[in-house]
């Protein structure tokens, strides 16, 4: 009995973790890599560091925080 329950709990925790990662933007680089592999396979891929710097620059050059 305990095994399926444990497995279910682990699955749910995993789903929760994925939602948290998506909401916070923690998985942004993984998503970019997946997108890159699917549609721009031949082009150069940004490193994690380059991608994060680029994302920050884009995010903070427009109005994205309010009164």
């Amino acid at each position, binding site marked *: 009995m305990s095994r399926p329950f444990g497995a279910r709990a682990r699955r749910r925790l995993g789903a929760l973790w994925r939602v948290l990662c998506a909401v916070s933007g923690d998985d942004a680089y993984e*998503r970019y890599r997946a997108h890159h592999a699917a549609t721009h396979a031949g082009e150069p891929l940004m490193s994690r560091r380059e991608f994060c710097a680029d994302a920050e620059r884009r995010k903070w050059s427009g109005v994205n925080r309010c009164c």
Partner: protein
Amino acid sequence: MMRRLSAVVLALGGGIALGGIALQRHEPINALWIITAAVCIYLLGYRFYAAWIATRVLLVDPSRATPAERLNNGRDFLPTHRAIVFGHHFAAIAGPGPLVGPTLAAQFGYLPGTLWIIIGAALGGCVQDMTILLLSTRRDGRSLGQMARDELGPLGGFAALIGTLLILIVLSAVLGLVIVNAMKHSPWATSTVAATIPAAILVGLYLRLWRPGRVLEGSVIGVSLVLLAVVAGGWLDHQPQLRNAFDYAALPIAAAIVIYAWVAAILPVWLLLAPRDYLSTFLKLGTVALLAVAIVLTHPQLKMPAVTRFIDGSGPLFGGALFPFVFITIACGAISGFHALVASGTTPKLISNEADVRLVGYGSMALESFVAIMAMIAATLLDPGVYFAINTGAGIVGATPEAAVQTISGWGFPVTAQQMQSLAQSVGEHTLFARTGGAPSLAVGMASIFGSGFGRSLGAIWYHFAIMFEVVFILTTLDAGTRVGRFMLQDLLGHVWVPLGRTSWYPSVLFASTLLVAAWGYFLYVGVIDPNGGVNILWPLFGIANQMLAAIALSVATGILIKSGRARYALVTLAPLAWLAIVTTSAAWQKIVSPDPHTGFLAAAGDLATRLAAGALSAERAAVAPQLIFNQRLDAVLTVLFTAILWIVILDMGRVCVRRLRGLPLRSSSEAPYRQSQLPGPALAGQ
């Protein structure tokens, strides 16, 4: 059948709750009535009005490919699950505005502000956000200014740019003032806030050097550090030597904030701005959720009357009668023009399906409005005497506690110096008199709610947690606003001399940042030296500016609806636009021509000048009077400017509509052509 049943339940619930509020006029009312009425009306608005607008007015087409799909680059254009877009959008629009505005408007009683928050959001604010979001989504995520230029003409676009820049200046000044008043002579609050700066830098370094992009880890570290800082601040407050090192008057704190914002604007974003934003977003979402749970658990009674005597315009927090000033004071939470900038920024580039604009646009604003309702509850559950003692400047009630309690009790809101003293002690503060700006009284209200929900013995910790939460929140808006304002200023300066327009040229960055910080720093400085608290002048100015921006957004929306042959539905945006035009213009008119020095800028300047000339001012007040006189006149000029921009855009929209109705040629629509969506639902990011 179930949907109809739920609608009937919602309508009944909303009706009963509103009836409860209406009938219990002369006895304390429970906050749950207000919560129930608000939630039912938001849900009804979402279920019926928003759905009708989406299908009939905006012609939302779920089969149409959005820019996130068409221009998908895996980065800023990215089809994203609607729940996640909702989270991003809500985090972006929810700022300190809905916390401060309702707190100030509570001087009229709980009823006027509450009704405006609920009705204004359901029929105005949510509609504006959803409409602008869809219009921008249809135009590849173009900004409000670009849409104004494309659809109305260069005049509308230029007015939108100038209006936005001015609102950023007034907003930064007033928010700076709110935190100065929360931190002055409070070593606990000052040391806690100071500690958030190295905490943010540490998180910045962590996310840049050690674990790039690991936002969750960084945020957990940062939030733990700032919570530790709140507790450590309490310890520091009991160490006489350390305590003195963080005990400052208002002026040095204001200077520190100005210098801090200037440094934050020129430093690379990853070092301070971005990590601070992660901290404030987590704190914001967590605290708002905690507050909602605590209000439902403790369901406090509101002690403020439904309507106070100050609806006649004699209010101590700010001058001006109920109409139009309650509608100016509460902008964010009911309708906020600033949201139109966010709804035409990052969000439309993430929308995977047009149908999502209802949840993201209308839904996020309804939630923001709910935050404003909670702020109203936190302000009105305090004893009214305590509320006025905290929020009224020494220039109005008198500088000593005895004078203040006598004046306030004389208004019919009894309060004693001893009551204020023991309240200050219970939250770990030296005094709570004349802590204007709304943040301290909100923190006392939140501490009271959290205290009765989760442990009363922690009153001082809850209070300083609430202060830290508000200040971190405001500093993020200040940092981000200064940075965006700098870009806009550089954009404008580029027309004067091209190199000044280069955002990466360091001399230009320094010049534009200094100019912008000096502009809002000036208003902050005058607010700090004003014995009446300064917020009474700056907040209405900010309200007028924000409503002006909302009117620009609604003009763009109305213009587009009429241009595209949907004139019969134009009332959806035209009605809130007309209301805002009436409210903003009459507020501006009163601020300029009112002969009452308590309300009118020019009357106040004239009154002060007369008293200065007659030698009727104390030496202290006479020293700052010339600056205050100049500032009131400058505020009058700004008010005229805001109103002029408002009417220029409305008339420009009117011109476009008349041309359309007469069949004259118009600028062609900037809407991207239709393309069938190929997106399979479950392939979205975040699923």
